[in-house]
């Protein structure tokens, strides 16, 4: 936090992510499907690792309930 080009854009984003998580729970998608990560421009390795880890977590969760119902676009 605070390591932001626009000073506090990511702090605001975090609050919005929290709000959206609540909405995802109400919708039935589940807050777990939305993640916020703080990654600065020098963190190329962390970026790659985070995406790999998140992919793993999403695999655990399984496909989105919207896709599971055969509602795929």
């Amino acid at each position, binding site marked *: 936090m605070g390591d932001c080009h626009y000073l506090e854009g990511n702090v605001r984003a975090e609050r919005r992510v929290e709000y959206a998580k609540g909405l995802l729970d109400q919708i039935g998608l589940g807050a777990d499907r939305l993640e916020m990560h703080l990654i600065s421009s020098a963190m*190329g390795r962390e970026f790659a690792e985070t995406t790999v880890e998140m992919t793993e977590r999403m695999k655990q969760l399984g496909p989105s309930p919207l896709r599971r119902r055969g509602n795929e676009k």
Partner: protein
Amino acid sequence: MNEFEPQIVAFCCHFCAYAAADLAGSLRLQYPTNLKVIRLPCTGKLDTLHVLKAFEEGADGVMVAG
């Protein structure tokens, strides 16, 4: 289940995470191909509507990075 490749949409700040993704690329680091990166001028631009649209269009997960 084995075949399941989660679709992930990543909203990345132009100055932080997007640059990090670039760096990861130039370091030849592997990251999942199922990741769709959307560049924002700043994650402060993140809009609840964008997150919902990503899910509506079939994303299994959404990542916000900045």
